[in-house]
């Protein structure tokens, strides 16, 4: 049986592009024919759901009933991968909740694949988040994501300072999301469709759209680079390993 995978996308700071990264992940797994579901924790109305309405459910990750909805169904859901877009400011508390319910322990035992995509902001406060988060994540696959998508002068940190935080997390890997042409980004936002649909010139219901070929080209090139980063960290290999134990028991 295939081990279910949970990917937490979050940051303790708003406006750093969590949902954008979550969208690229959903597209990436879709391209690899990996059944995926997503939870958007921006209640009551989630941005991620706007782009992937069929795959996404809006939940309140701090409520027990919604935690059950997510984690008790890991073994029974058709989806192999669960992507959780964590609302700004909730990453640390969500990780703490996962510790409390024993989820992180299951991940440590290898019964669940667990990965954290920690989206970094431009300020030094973001670096301090790394240290705080590192304390909780333990054995999770930890990815520090530098998101340049809408800001070219994003990272002006002192490399030595950054590295001192980065090294605090054992096995952490760095992912860089490159800048996307502003007009292309805006048009995808307006279209409210997955990146792959925009590239394929499709609307929300699969109908033909009339997107600019130039903007589609920019998005295709950009998404190719993002997926190149996911390939580099062997994301597909990460979610593919099999396990022998009964996953329902774990989820229960």
């Amino acid at each position, binding site marked *: 049986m295939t081990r279910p995978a949970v990917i937490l996308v979050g940051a303790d700071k708003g406006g750093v592009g969590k949902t954008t990264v979550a969208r690229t992940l959903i597209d990436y797994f879709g391209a690899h024919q990996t059944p995926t579901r997503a939870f958007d924790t921006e209640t009551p109305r989630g941005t991620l759901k706007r782009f992937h309405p069929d795959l996404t459910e809006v939940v309140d990750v701090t409520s027990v009933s919604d935690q059950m909805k997510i984690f008790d169904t890991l073994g029974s859901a058709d989806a192999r991968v669960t992507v959780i877009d964590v609302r700004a400011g909730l990453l640390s508390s969500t990780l703490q909740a996962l510790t409390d319910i024993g989820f992180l322990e299951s991940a440590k035992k290898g019964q669940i694949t667990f990965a954290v995509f920690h989206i970094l902001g431009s300020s030094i406060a973001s670096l301090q988040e790394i240290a705080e988060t590192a304390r909780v994540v333990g054995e999770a696959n930890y990815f520090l994501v530098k998101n340049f998508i809408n800001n070219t002068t994003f990272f002006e940190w002192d490399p030595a300072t950054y590295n001192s935080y980065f090294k605090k997390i054992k096995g952490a890997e760095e992912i860089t999301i490159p800048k996307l*042409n*502003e*007009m*292309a980004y805006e048009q995808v936002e307006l279209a409210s469709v997955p990146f792959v649909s925009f590239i394929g010139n499709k609307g929300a219901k699969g109908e033909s759209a009339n997107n*600019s*070929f*130039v*903007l*589609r*080209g*920019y998005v*295709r*090139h950009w998404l190719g680079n993002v997926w190149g980063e996911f390939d580099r960290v062997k994301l597909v290999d990460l979610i593919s390993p099999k396990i022998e134990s009964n996953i329902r028991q774990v989820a229960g």
Partner: protein
Amino acid sequence: MAFRSSITIVASPRPRVGKTLLARLVTGFHLHEGRLVAAFDLNAGEGTLLQFLPEQTTSASVRDTSGQMALFDHLVAHEDTTKIIDLGHESFEPFFSIAHKIGFVEEACRRAIAVAILFIITPDQTSVEAYRRLRDRFARTTLAPVHNEILGPAQYRDRYPLTIGGAGIVHMPALAPGLRRYIDRPPFSFADPNLGEVSGMSVDAHSELQRWLRRIFLEFRELDLRILLADLRSAIQFGSGT
């Protein structure tokens, strides 16, 4: 070019090598053949394609995204029109960088549009390197080196290897001395059958110009056939023929 929609890009990273004259000749050729032509001028200053062919030409730019959309979206639009680009040397690198990034040639091929680059060859290393990069980046185009004979003998032609299955060198013969002053003044058009009279040319000068034009148009007809052949090969190789 004659058999389905085509885009011809006249290019060189060097200034003053005859790009606009070549673009005017290519445009004149297609108009002479009775085709609908849309030309795009990526030049600044005097003596531009826009000044010679204002009815067919649109000023274009790749400096910002809006300009890129106006140009490339128009280029790949489904139209029964032959498109010609006069690529100023300053736009050379940005144009081809963007074209590569957005997959312009692949999209054109997908839409059954043949793309040809007419590259005016010169002995400098910048041009040799630029040509090599075009070969690497745009394998699905017909990359045709053009020898503008007014620039002197092409003893450096071996630095411009021909593309596999692509076009050979296109020769642009030097115009007889004294005729240049007629053709370099707008609104001279190579497609206008009465232009000799309009320009106040002597009969001899007009005849000489016609001979020169015939030689060049013959080169373009051969190029048309080579592009068709390359296009067919590409369609078979990549399985994207229509």
